[in-house]
């Protein structure tokens, strides 16, 4: 199970979960398995898990989210591309988080801040009618011995 990935064409793993909190663990576990398949380091796998969980949580906590969240993991050589989509109706992009002082500490936007920090590339599109479409890319940097 832990053999090096040799394919050059992308392989896709897709998962659709109910947009409810108890299913987020399944989404992050699925992403972790794909990241492990690509031989990400343990720290990188944890980064991917958290980024996926934050993306799912952001959907769930946002008013007007859809019934399902779709997770697509695209495994390329040394690159993981993760897409998280929901079918809800949204009016604004997620708030951007930043490093906080106590007086301004707030949770809003912290999730997207973590995603941007932990992943190498992040883009998202929030469509009022078609929901959120978040794409994150993580590249392998440290292979385990």
């Amino acid at each position: 199970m832990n053999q090096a990935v040799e394919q050059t064409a992308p392989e896709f793993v897709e998962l659709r979960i109910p947009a409810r909190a108890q299913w987020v663990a399944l989404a992050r576990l699925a992403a972790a398995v794909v990241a492990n398949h690509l031989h990400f380091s343990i720290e990188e796998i944890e980064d991917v898990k958290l980024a996926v969980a934050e993306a799912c949580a952001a959907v769930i906590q946002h008013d007007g989210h859809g019934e399902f969240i779709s997770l697509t993991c695209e495994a390329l050589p040394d690159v993981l591309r993760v897409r998280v989509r929901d079918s809800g109706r949204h009016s604004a992009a997620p708030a951007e988080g930043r490093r906080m002082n106590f007086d301004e500490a707030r949770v809003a936007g912290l999730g997207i801040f973590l995603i941007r920090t932990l992943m190498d590339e992040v883009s998202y599109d929030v469509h009022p009618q078609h929901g959120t479409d978040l794409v994150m890319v993580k590249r392998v940097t440290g292979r385990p011995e």
Partner: protein
Amino acid sequence: MDIKVNVREAPGDCYVVELNGEIDVYTSPKVKDAIGTLIDRGVYHLVINLEKVRYIDSTGLGVLIGGLKRVREHGGSVNLVCTNLQIKKIFDITGLVKIFGIFDSEDAAMKALV
């Protein structure tokens, strides 16, 4: 997946909240309830032990921030016990290392309570 919450009284008019498991969007309400219940009872000095926490996300961080804000309104404090490097990394990149006292042992966290 679950979070186990163990609350116990400690010397020095403080309480220890020991967490075991994963703190995420699903489990964080249970942690919030435990901390909120203590604060409602007038406990304003808390040590939250994260040694057995394997994972925390922004909703978990939000619960800790919320607890800290509430106790500080009463002159209290919250110290954390955390030895997990990945979780320490999350506190570091979010800047929360500057607002929480983070210690490697429960004893050190209790001694440092204001």
